Structure formats: structure tokens, C-alpha cells
């Protein structure tokens, strides 16, 4: 009998929907149907059925081809490579559970590595802004239950977070928002008429790259000062109208995305958005949230903050203390400045998502990919180690974009012999300890750390 598993978490975007239903074959090895998910989530679960998924590590041969090797050899090679490097970079974690992120902390510490995650090329500037200006935020349930004015600034959830608008932000009928969309004023700020902008009551089609000026205009207006007739390509009247809508609302929610963090000014666009949120709290209730891209990309920010005090760009090479300064210890900067001599790509695809120049720089040195699937990074690696797919054949804790931890379930049994990220990192760590004749530090006993194969 196929089995229907309910309240499954979706390991795609930062909405981390946990209402997916997956119909699984009798033997627990195939996904038959996926309900409630968006098209992306749907594809993701079905892709796990792919019969060509790698089941063994592959190592590049002198002639450029890849040859399957045992996990033991792969672990040994990785441990030795990390120990030999002066400054290895371990990057990624866009699709890893927190158990894996915690386990890699030990490996990175032992290796004297720089530990970084996808935020480094994504919402990293949001962290910089949070460092400088704080983060008045809330959980997504607050948005659903209370928000009557929702601003999407430089983000396009209709494409990047397909169910965000229906679960949390535009359409749902919440406790104090029983009329759903009818009760909400939607504001979009985007240089394109994106599919999210099309849903907005007010769309600010600003000149690309001039978000900071527009934020400053809103702040200036809110403090009762005059502004020029046009700011960032937007007419003064339209700015006054938006400011009034925000002031009059009972609960203003500002979501922001790559439109702020990928463009000129980076962190400052987010920083001033936070200032605006702070200002709005003297008029009404207001909150702000980063539209985090992946289902658990908030995870490394949390796990590594409690382990090392920093969410990303963590330079552990000093031995005695962790150091962080994006611009210096951030992956792309390290790559471009030739500051690292070994690259480990984990649960992401730097080959596809980094500027190609940066890829060329890290490719000068040993390049290892740890990922369930074939990807661009795996195809240029010296070693590719497959692992189980977090959220599909491995459960675990993930942090949603609002940092709410959600305990994901495994729906499939997983490929025989293929370890989870956590198990793989623990094997690498143990090998490193053996090679350096040191005692591993497990804190709680090793057998308790593992995400168990059967969860009650």
C-alpha cells in the first residue's frame, strides 16, 4: 500500500511550507504524488526518484574523467586535503539540515577553515544591516493574522517564494484579517512590473539601483519634512500616498529581497529599510523580514551564531578565536583575492551561482563538492561526494525565513549506503582526528547527535 505522509516540509524556498502531503510507494523508495506544493517543490520531490542519482563518490582522474571510489577513500581524501590546506573554504549549505551544519562546525574548526554559507552571495548584506541597525521582525503567523499593509521591496515572491503570498502575506484570512486580501494594502517596489507588482495596490517602478533614495524619501516624509518633486523616478505625490498608507495601517509588514541586496549600496538599502521600520513604530506597528531564499538558509545563521558568534563568513583559521568581516572573509572576496587554497562546496552549486571569474579562482586549488545530485560544481570538482537529500530522504531541523525552527520529516528511505550530510561530516571529522592523533569532541555522545533513522 502506498503511504500518504502529511505535514511534510518542503525543502525548496524560504517559505518552508510544512503542509505538503507526499504519497510514497509501498517500499518507501519512490515518490508517487505530491500535494499542496508549488511547481518547484513538486519537481523537487519527484526528482528524488531519478534513477541516475549518484550513489558513490567520484574522483577526477588525471585524464579529466570521473571514477567512482568508496566513501572511505573519499573521506580520507577530504580529511587530508582539508588538513593540508593553509586556508580552506567551506561554502554552501543552501540545502542542508541543521544537524549537518552543526557537524560541519567541528570539521571547519579542526581544518582552520573559513565557514560560509549562501547568504554570502544572497542575504549577506541583510546580516550587515542587522549588525548595524537591528531587526524589528516577527514570525509569519503575525503577518497572516495582523498585517493590513504589506510592502514587497525588491522581492518577487510570485516567482521566488510561490506559496508565500497564499500562506502568509497577501491572500490568507487570519485572526484579525478575516477578509484576507481585501483587507490588505499591497505595495510593491520593483524596477520591473513583476508578477508580484501586478498584485499590488501601489507599485513603485523606481529607477533600478536607487532604492536608498526612495527609502530616505519615505523617512523624510514621515518626519514631516518636504522632499523633491521626484525621487528615484517616483513622483512626490505617489510617495506621499504610500507613506500615508503605511502610517494609517494597523500593522505594516515590509518584505525585502535581492532587489536590495544585489545592487549598489547592498547592506545600506536594507539598513535604511530597518530605519524606516523603526520610524513606523512610532506611528503604528511595523515589522520587517528578509525573504530568505532557501528553506533552511536561515539555519547556518542560527547554528553558527550559537557555535561561533557569527552567522556567516567565519574565519576559523586563527585557531584561538573566530573572525568575521564580510568583504574580507566572504567567499567571493576570498576567491577573487586568492586567499583560499581549497574549496569545499556543500549543498549548493557555486559552479552555477557564482560569477564565473570567482569559480575560475577557486578552481586553481583542490575542489570538492558534497551534494546529492549532479550539478555544475560537481562536474568541475576533483571529488564529488553524494549525500542524502535533506527534507526528502533525511529529516531534521530547518529554520524558516522568520527563523522559526521546523522539524522536517524524511519521506523516502534514501539510497543504500549514501550517508547524510551529518554522517559524512562526522566521518571526515573522525578521520581528521585520527590523522592528527587528537581526541574528537562530541559534547553529547556521538550516538545521540545523529538524526535518527526512525523518529517517533
Amino acid at each position, binding site marked *: 500500500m502506498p503511504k500518504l505522509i502529511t505535514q511534510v516540509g518542503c525543502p525548496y524556498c524560504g517559505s518552508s511550507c510544512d503542509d505538503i502531503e507526499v504519497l510514497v510507494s509501498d517500499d518507501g523508495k519512490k515518490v508517487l504524488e505530491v500535494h499542496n506544493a508549488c511547481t518547484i517543490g513538486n519537481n523537487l520531490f519527484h526528482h528524488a526518484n531519478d534513477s541516475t542519482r549518484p550513489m558513490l563518490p567520484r574522483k577526477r582522474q588525471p585524464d579529466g574523467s570521473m571514477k567512482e571510489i568508496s566513501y572511505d577513500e573519499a573521506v580520507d581524501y577530504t580529511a587530508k586535503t582539508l588538513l593540508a590546506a593553509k586556508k580552506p573554504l567551506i561554502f554552501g549549505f543552501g540545502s542542508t539540515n541543521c544537524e549537518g551544519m552543526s557537524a560541519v562546525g567541528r570539521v571547519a574548526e579542526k581544518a582552520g577553515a573559513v565557514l560560509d554559507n549562501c547568504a554570502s552571495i544572497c542575504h*549577506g548584506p541583510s546580516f550587515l544591516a542587522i549588525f548595524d541597525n537591528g531587526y524589528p521582525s516577527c514570525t509569519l503567523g503575525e503577518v497572516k493574522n495582523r498585517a493590513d499593509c504589506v510592502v514587497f521591496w525588491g522581492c518577487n515572491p510570485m516567482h521566488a517564494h510561490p506559496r508565500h503570498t497564499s500562506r502568509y502575506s497577501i491572500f490568507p484570512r487570519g485572526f484579525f484579517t478575516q477578509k484576507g486580501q481585501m483587507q490588505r494594502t499591497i505595495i510593491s517596489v520593483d524596477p*520591473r512590473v513583476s508578477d508580484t507588482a501586478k498584485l499590488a495596490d501601489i507599485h513603485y517602478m523606481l529607477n533600478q539601483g536607487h532604492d536608498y533614495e526612495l527609502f530616505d524619501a519615505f523617512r523624510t516624509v514621515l518626519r514631516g519634512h518636504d522632499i523633491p518633486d521626484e525621487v528615484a523616478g517616483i513622483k512626490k505625490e505617489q510617495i506621499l500616498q504610500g507613506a500615508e498608507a503605511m502610517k494609517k495601517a494597523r500593522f505594516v509588514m515590509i518584505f525585502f529581497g535581492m*532587489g536590495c541586496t544585489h545592487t549598489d549600496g547592498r547592506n545600506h538599502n536594507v539598513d535604511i529599510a530597518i530605519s524606516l521600520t523603526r520610524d513606523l513604530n512610532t506611528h503604528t506597528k511595523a515589522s520587517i523580514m528578509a525573504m530568505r531564499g532557501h528553506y533552511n538558509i536561515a539555519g547556518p545563521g542560527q547554528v553558527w551564531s550559537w557555535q561561533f558568534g557569527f552567522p556567516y563568513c567565519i574565519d576559523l583559521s586563527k585557531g584561538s578565536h573566530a573572525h568575521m568581516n564580510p568583504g574580507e572573509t566572504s567567499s567571493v572576496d576570498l576567491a577573487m583575492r586568492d586567499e583560499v587554497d581549497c574549496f569545499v562546496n556543500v549543498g549548493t552549486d557555486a559552479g552555477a551561482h557564482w560569477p564565473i571569474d570567482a569559480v575560475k579562482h577557486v578552481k586553481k586549488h583542490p575542489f570538492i563538492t558534497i551534494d546529492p545530485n549532479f550539478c555544475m560544481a560537481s562536474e568541475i570538482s576533483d571529488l564529488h561526494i553524494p549525500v542524502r537529500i535533506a527534507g526528502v530522504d533525511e529529516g531534521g531541523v530547518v529554520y524558516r525565513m522568520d527563523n522559526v525552527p521546523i522539524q522536517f520529516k524524511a519521506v523516502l528511505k534514501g539510497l543504500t549506503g549514501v550517508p547524510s550530510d551529518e554522517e559524512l561530516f562526522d566521518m571526515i571529522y573522525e578521520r581528521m582526528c585520527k590523522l592528527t592523533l587528537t581526541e574528537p569532541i562530541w559534547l553529547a555522545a556521538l550516538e545521540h547527535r545523529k538524526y535518527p533513522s526512525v523518529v517517533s
Partner: protein
Amino acid sequence: MPKIRLNMITQRSIEEGAAMEKGKTNPDYFTACSICEMNPEDMKKAGIWKSTNVRVTSECGSVIVKAIEPTQFVPPGLAHIRQGVWANQVVPPRTQSTGVPQYSGFPVTIEPAPNERLKTALELVQGAVGLWKGGN
């Protein structure tokens, strides 16, 4: 050949996301990402016919993509390549010392390249690091 100078942004789309989860060597991914969306006015100015190949050149390289009319409206002066392998052939790695490359808001030149061939993701990435074993 006429050329046009535009401001480039590279962002996500649902087509890209849906295709990526099938695998980056899947034809859907190629179709979803090897395109450049531009305003028809700009296309006209540069002598570009819709759905033909163009060369996009930035300060750090160039890539052949197919020019299409925007799926989401793009005003004149702005161009959009969906996030992914093709976009990243031209994204400048400069970070303003924040860690994040200039994924959006960088100047590019776009010119017709009707006789140029679109390369696959694998050819672009492996080719960049000297591992591409396929033909040209």
C-alpha cells in the same frame, strides 16, 4: 553592427526554479535560463529580432543568450537575464566589500549575434575551467 548599452539585472524566476529542481543539465533549465529579457524598444534600437541570439558583454566577459520580449515588463534601459549559469558568465565579481557580487545593476553591451550558438550550461562552466571535452 548596432549595439545598445543597458543596465543588467539577474534575478530569480519560477521557470528557473522549477527547471533547476529537475537538474541543471535538463533541457528545461537551458530553455529557462539562456535568455535575455529586454524592452522591445531597445531591441529595435539595437536591430535585434525577438527570439534571436545576442551577445551580452560586461566588464568581465560575454555570453550568447536568446533575446526575448519580457515575461515580466522591463522598462527601456533595463535588461534581465534569469539567475543561473548564463547570467553568471557576465556578472561582475566585485562586491563593494560586502561579499555579494554585482548581480544586479551593472552595465552591459548587447548586440545581435544571430549566427552564434547558445552553449549548454555544462559547456560554459567546464569550458571556463578547461575541463570541457565536447566539441565547439
